[in-house]
Every structure is written in C-alpha cells, then in structure tokens.
C-alpha cells in the first residue's frame, strides 16, 4: 500500500485541537530524545554534539596531541572533568602513538583535499584523524560525517567530528564511531566517504544555538583496512547488583594498551519503582575509584532503557593498583506537579574488581 504518511495528507485532522502548555524542560527533553533517535545520517550532530562533547574533547585531545605534538601544549584542558588528561599526561601518552596506524590517503574535490593521516581500531571504536586543506576559509570548526565501516549495521553511534582550524586553510581533527561487535574482527574495512562538509560561521559556547550553518558539496572517498590493536577480553558474566529496583550484570571487560571497556547490562524492576514514585526517566552511571584513591571519569554509552546494555569507557588504570571499586548509581527523575520533575540519585552497593 502507499506510504502511510502520504495518505495522511488526505486525512489531515482539522478538528479544533487543544494545544497544551509545554515547559522549556519538556521541550529540551523531547529535543534530546528526537536528535538521539534520528538515523545517523540524518542527525548532523547538533544536539548530539552536546551529549557527547566531553568524550569528544578527551578523544580529540589525545589524538590531536599525538598527531600535532607541536601544538599539544595549546590544547585547552577543561576543568576537573579532564584532570585525568593534564598537560603532563598528554606528554606521557607519547608511546601510545605506536598504536596509531598511519594511513596517509588523500582525495580531493571542489577545492577541498581530505587526507586520512592516522586511524585507530581497538575493537569498540574506530577513530580517524583528518588533515583537511581548503582553498577558502571555512571558519573555525568543520563537521564531517564520513566514517563508515564494514556492514554499517554494526555501527551503534557516531561521535560528531571535531575538526578545527590549525592554520589558514588547514584543519585537523578526529571522527569516531562506536561499533556493536561482541567479538571484534582482527581487521575491519573502513570507508571515509561523503558528499558534503559543513561548518558554522559563528561558533558559540552552546552549540545548539548555532544557526548559521554552511555546506560545501563534493565527493570524497577513501577506503582502507584497519587492524585491531592488541586487546584482552575478559569474560565475567556475573550479577554484581541485586537490588529492590535494579539488577545489574557485569558481562565482560576489554583492556587495550590505551583504554578499558566494561560492559554491563541492567534490568529495572518497573513495578516496584512505580510503587515508590511517579518516575519519568532513569539511567545508570558508574563511579570508579582505585585503592590508591585515583578517581576515574568514565564515559557511558547506554543502549536501552528498562533493559539496557551500558558500555563504560575509561583510560587505562594505573599499574600498581590492587583493585578498583565500582559504584553503580541509579539516577531517577520523577514528577512532582504540572509535569515538573526532579532528579534523584540512588547509590547502589559497590563492588570490586581486582587487578591481577
């Protein structure tokens, strides 16, 4: 049959409809949900940018420092959140450059030359470093959405690219995708291809407010194979939290020379939760601290809601630790009156993972 949305053109409801008042916070939540649910290619990383900006800045700082050691000292370190990556740490990361694969493939179109300088595949993510030369000024930041991987269905999320101007008509930066692969292949086919590059004439602190977006069309295509860096996957498959409101299973962890990934799945007991409060939303985060008192600031990627899988990503742990302590925190928002809501945190029992 014809497309339902096409048929809706003929069925347009024209009854007098009762418009309801809607608060700013509701609109904000709806936008957040909408832009996170859009298919990747239709989401040009606007609101998504806000949600992922922290991860992005960390990742781009690392790669940016590695591929541009001369400007590494100028990378802004943003508050406590990034204290893990102090300027000294960035310097210490020098040996991690060993894990980057040099690509050095170039394609030009419409006056824009795109070079993939380096790439990294650690089983969970693929990061590609760009050097882009232009024949005109394209502002301070470029947005590229070029990265595709084998099968593409395995791609669970793409981080917004973060490509910034480093000299007149020269831009450098990073694009990253996460993969939904349980057993990563030793090698993966990667395509960097696209028909447009966007930029904002005026970049403000809050990217959502950027309205003036320009686009240049072209045709760039670069293909290459990328090998998996060394990694160790440790199967756990143990229940670590058995709470009135939530069960959490620790599935596995993957350790690489540059990062650590924990995989958890949880199930919320909705009926019990509903008995306690009129909740609106919830998510689970994990606080991680080691026995020496080092606090880690992981990035979380939660897929699902009531039943969800969460990947927790961190830098490597210090070598001389005995264990890390993981404290799951259930964040719950609940309604008060007139659709207003509040957030509350429920700290769950922590558990330890011992370093071998």
């Amino acid at each position, binding site marked *: *049959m*014809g*497309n*339902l*949305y*096409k*048929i*809706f*053109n*003929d*069925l*347009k*409801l*024209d009854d007098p*409809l*009762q*418009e*309801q*008042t*809607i608060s700013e916070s*509701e*609109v904000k*939540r*709806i*936008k957040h*949900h*909408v*832009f996170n*649910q*859009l*298919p990747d290619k*239709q*989401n*040009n990383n*606007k*609101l998504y940018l806000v949600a992922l900006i922290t991860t992005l800045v960390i990742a781009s700082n690392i790669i940016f420092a590695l591929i541009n050691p001369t400007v590494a000292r100028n990378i802004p370190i943003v508050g406590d959140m990034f204290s893990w990556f102090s300027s000294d740490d960035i310097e210490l990361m020098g040996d991690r450059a060993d894990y980057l694969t040099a690509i050095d493939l170039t394609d030009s179109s419409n006056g824009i030359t795109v070079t993939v300088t380096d790439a990294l595949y650690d089983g969970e993510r693929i990061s590609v470093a760009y050097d882009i030369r232009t024949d005109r000024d394209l502002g301070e930041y470029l947005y590229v959405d070029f990265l595709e991987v084998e099968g593409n269905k395995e791609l669970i999320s793409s981080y917004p690219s973060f490509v910034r101007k480093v000299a007149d008509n020269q831009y450098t930066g990073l694009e990253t995708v996460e993969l939904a692969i349980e057993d990563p292949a030793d090698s993966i086919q990667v395509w960097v291809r696209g028909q447009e590059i966007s930029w904002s004439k005026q970049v403000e602190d809050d990217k*959502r407010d950027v*309205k*003036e*977006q320009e686009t240049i069309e072209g045709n760039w295509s670069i293909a290459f194979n990328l090998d998996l860096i060394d990694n160790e996957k440790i199967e756990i498959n143990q229940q670590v939290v058995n709470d009135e409101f939530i069960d959490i299973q620790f599935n596995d962890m993957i350790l690489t020379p540059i990062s650590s990934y924990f995989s958890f799945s949880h199930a919320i007991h*909705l*009926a019990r939760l*509903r008995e306690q409060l*009129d*909740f*609106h*939303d919830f998510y689970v985060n994990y606080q991680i601290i080691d026995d020496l008192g080092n606090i880690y600031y992981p990035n979380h990627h939660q897929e699902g809601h009531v039943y969800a899988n969460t990947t927790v990503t961190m830098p490597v742990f210090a070598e001389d630790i005995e264990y890390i302590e993981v404290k799951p925190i259930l964040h719950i928002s609940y*309604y008060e009156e007139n*659709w207003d*809501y509040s957030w509350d945190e429920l700290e769950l029992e922590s558990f330890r993972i011992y370093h071998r």
Partner: protein
Amino acid sequence: MQISDANFIKQMKKGNPDALEYVVDQYAGLVKGVVVNTLKAYKDYYLVEECISDVFIGAYTNIKHFKGDKDDFGKWLCTIAKFKAVDKQREWHRMPIFTELDEGVSYVESAEASVMKQETTDQLLNKLSNLKAVDRKIFIMKYFLEMSNQEIAEKLNLSKAAVDNRLYRGKKVLNKKALGGLFYGKFI
C-alpha cells in the same frame, strides 16, 4: 540559515536539523495536546514524551511525503500525532502489565479494540493493502486514528451508512482472502 515559517518545510525536506528543532519549538504544545488526549488514561508521562518524540521523528523522516503549506503541515503533524498515540496504545497492550490503572480513571474499551491492539501496526497495514484506496482510508481512520464512523463519513463526504457498509464489505474482502482476522465479524 535562519529558519522561519517561510522556509522550515523546505529546509526539513533538505534534511536540515535546524528546521526540525524549529518545528519542535513551534509545534510541541500542539502535538502534546493530541497525544495527551489519547494517552491520558495511562498516566505515564514518560510514555507521553516518548510518543511526542516519535511524532517529530516520524515527521522528519517522512517529510518527503508531505504536500502543502504551513497550515497543512500542522494538520499533517496532528494526524501523525494521533496515529503515533494510537500506535503507542497498541504497543502498550502487547507489553506485560506492570501496574493497574487507577480505579478512578474512566477507561472502557471494547473487546474489539482490546484485541485490535494486540496486532502490530505492520501486520494491520499489510492486511489493508488488499483493499481499495477509499476503503483503505476508512480503515486507517477507523483503526489508526480511532475516528468514529460518523467522523469518517463527514471527513470523506460520505453518508454514515456508506461508511458502515464499506467497513462491513472491507472486512468481508479481507476475510475471503483469509486475512480478516480481527477485522472480521461483529467487531465494528
């Protein structure tokens, strides 16, 4: 590019997410009105907000099928909102029940409606592809937009008897093709 009433439809069709953001700002209250009206018995704010989000995603990803101007767009969006809300009810009825509705809520549905909601939207749409265009519209209005036979008649410039008759004949057609299932019988 500044998004305004004059260009948001064109920009939506070009896939400009700024236009989508503009539409959410402009129409969220209207969509909420339609969705809440359909889902209010559930008293689940999360369900309502999820449905409102689905409406805007549906509109954005299917904007190529929209024809008309700004006024038409509002009505088209409301139709999507009604469809999504009914669809959400259907989805909800297929889920395990975690809690009971408040006793004070007046929410009575027919056995037909209850059973109808057990089928997925795709299953129902597939069945309708066997009908003539006008009958398909009637079935969509009846089962996807929950309009009464009288409302459908007024919308399509038909008599109510004609709508009753077409629904009856449509169900027979589906039944002959062994597709009748829930559309057949004394449900309507």
